[in-house]
């Protein structure tokens, strides 16, 4: 019994050494070592409460990252307007709530606005606009509208407002936003793996010209993926607003969360998960794991008493690290006849 397990272990190490370059293995080993030491020495790291905190933080960035993953996988790069879409959504939601339309109508109203925001960007990108330029422009547009709409003030609404369950409710001990994250992650992965739409995302992302030649136009693809990303953004905005019973355009800007700008965090999450920036390779599961991972490291650093500077630095390092490792792994795996 022990004999066979040691054979398995040897095979595993042998396979690692064969399939990956020593540089990759050393980098990953060093990283794991830092991670384990950090976790072991952080006070209160492995408590139930702390793990819940990690998952909660991961959920907010993670849901947006899952949405953005569709855009990236389909070869349409990134939306630089994730934060501003969330700002527009949160103002729309809170304004509607404070006007007394109730949760269901306000939710619907917000989603319609978010879908329109996504569709406009998708249309422009699909017609050949550069994603960076289009979404940078859209970001300004959305932020401007929401700032104007709310007079740059906090829009608050009274409790009970019927949305507490989403903002601060929990189920089986887990916050509902975490549960939403898990459900969305599973659903997104199902869509990518098992539906023909998911396959189209990969095909168009892998080669847009070949996608067009086989009947999959990027125009409709870009519109669809941008709507998905915007809806995910809006969902996070609604959950956030439901928790704090208010909204302000700057909720998702630099003061948000722990490590800087929301859009940058979401993009970081997609990249740390190892999704190809050029599209066609990756999965929403990778982004979900990336979200949990970044949130864990961030949490560890908080427990160690680091302030926001070093934590932003750590996120930056993780992106660089992940890009390097995945690039090396990819290069090693290609053999041509």
């Amino acid at each position: 019994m022990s004999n066979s397990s040691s054979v398995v272990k040897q095979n595993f190490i042998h396979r690692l050494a064969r399939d990956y370059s020593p540089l990759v293995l050393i980098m990953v080993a060093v990283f794991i070592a830092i991670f384990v030491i950090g976790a072991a020495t952080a006070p209160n790291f492995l408590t139930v409460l702390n793990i819940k905190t990690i998952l909660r933080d991961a959920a907010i960035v993670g849901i947006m990252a899952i949405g953005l993953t569709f855009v990236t996988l389909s070869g349409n790069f990134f939306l630089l307007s994730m934060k501003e879409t969330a700002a527009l959504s949160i103002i729309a939601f809170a304004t509607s709530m404070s006007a007394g339309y109730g949760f269901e109508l306000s939710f619907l109203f917000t989603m319609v606005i978010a879908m329109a925001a996504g569709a406009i960007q998708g249309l422009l990108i699909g017609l050949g606009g550069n994603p960076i330029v289009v979404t940078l422009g859209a970001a300004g547009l959305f932020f401007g509208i929401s700032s104007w709409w709310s007079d740059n003030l906090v829009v608050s609404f009274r409790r009970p407002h019927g949305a507490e369950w989403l903002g601060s409710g929990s189920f089986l001990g887990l916050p509902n936003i975490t549960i939403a994250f898990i459900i969305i992650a599973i659903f997104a992965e199902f869509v990518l793996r098992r539906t023909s739409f998911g396959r189209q995302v990969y095909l168009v992302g892998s080669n847009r010209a070949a996608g067009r030649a086989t009947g999959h136009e990027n125009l409709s693809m870009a519109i669809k993926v941008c709507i998905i990303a915007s809806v995910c953004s809006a969902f996070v905005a609604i959950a956030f607003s439901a928790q704090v019973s208010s909204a302000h355009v700057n909720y998702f800007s630099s003061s948000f969360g722990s490590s800087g700008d929301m859009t940058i965090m979401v993009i970081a999450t997609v990249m740390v998960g190892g999704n190809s920036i050029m599209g066609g390779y990756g999965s929403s599961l990778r982004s979900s794991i990336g979200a949990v991972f970044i949130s864990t490291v961030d949490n560890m650093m908080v427990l160690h008493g680091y302030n926001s500077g070093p934590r932003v630095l750590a996120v930056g390092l993780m992106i660089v690290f992940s890009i390097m490792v995945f690039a090396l792994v990819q290069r090693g795996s290609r053999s041509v006849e």
Partner: protein
Amino acid sequence: MQPILKLSNIKRNYGAIKALRGANFEIMPGEVMGLVGENGAGKSTMVKIISGFDSGFEGEYLLNGEQLHFSSPIQAERSGIAVAQQELSLIKTMCVAENIFLAGDSVPTFATKKTLAKNAKPYLEEVGLGHVDPLTSTDRLSIGEQHLIEVARLLAHDPQILILDEPTAALGETDSIRILNMVNRLSERGKSIIYVSHRLDEIFKISDRIIVLRDGESQEPRQASELDVNSLVELMLGRELKNMYPKRIKKEISKPIMEVKNLWPDRLLEGVNFNIYAGEILGLAGQLGSGTGDILAAIAGSTRTRGGELIYKGKTFLPKSPKEAIDSGIAYCSDDRKHDGLFLGRPISENLSSAALKSISKNGIRLPKLENEMVTENAIKFTIDPSRIPQEAGVLSGGNQQKVALAKWLAIHPDVILVNEPTRGVDVGARAEIYQKLRELADDGAAIVVASTDIQEITNLPDRVITIYRGIQIGEIGLEDMSAATILEEITNPFNEKGLQGDEDL
């Protein structure tokens, strides 16, 4: 005389694939050595090893009798080995002289364009482009001229050994002849040239000796004069290739499946009219740039047109997008499979089902079992090894990639199949298989239209040929009149123009 370069017992593995298993290579000073073999035989690996791109090989590498093992292409270049890749590495917005001295050595650090132009002139003359102004922007030259510029750039480093990897693959007849003339000139001046090509006629025209690679092993170098096309193909395949082209029989003409009316793709000079019949292979013959490919692309809805219509299945229309064409059963393979024929980073299976996602899914959910069955069936039909289906399409050799690019259309059961350059960059073995398959599809009732600049192919594959000359439809040649001579006359000089003959002295 001692070989200037000698490689013995070279072994190279990529994971489980043995690309080379103890191959030998040698070349004498001033010799033109043809390097041939099927795709996957190890030609490109051999080229990479010689030119220093691949350092992970075992075996002996002797340059001028000195044992070497390059770890980078720069080292190889410094030792006098230069390689002209299939893909051009020119910067098209820069002028010719700037491109020639792109590496920056052998010219002063600060040089005006004029100095560069003066220094570039001799190299241009050497490759037969003496008439080209070194200050012309590179993208204003033809593809063939650009290939020559690429070689001129290599000559600026004064290499002893020059490797030309499929230099004529993307070129028409006139430009190919220029390349061959240049090879002859360079070898007369004492340069050793390794010439890799699928075009066997060229190999015979210019090589002194030929080395054949087969399954990673090399055959003894042979004098080109001792071989002919048949015996060379036999060496490459390890078996006799009976008939490259399937037999043709005169077909009864029935009602056309598609009538092309005044179709005017952007790059043609006027609209074209012809009929397409089920069960027939129709050829569109023309030189590179004549617009034959554009006609196919226009029928498939993948390029802009000025007008025209198709009468097809009782409808009169012109597809505005490839999707529309696919939905009505028109399949189209462009001449550049890497650009829009394949998803190189995705598995072969996904490539094979890419055009028919609807038929393998129910309510938007894919049915993996159904997909797997369909994909395996279509792979076997096109002699693609089904056990390789999970692999990325990008790891396949050119021939197998082309088979995948074609086989993906079987999934939509097309009535009309349009293929531009069906065998570009495809080895002899796979070529015969593709011809056979196209013929079978025609026999099963599909209408097939093939556009090709390969004169052998366009003479021997189709049942009927329509000739195009510089964007003008010239005529139609039936099976009874079909010969390379009649086609060539119509596609090169239909109006019996004098002059413009240039250097066609080969």
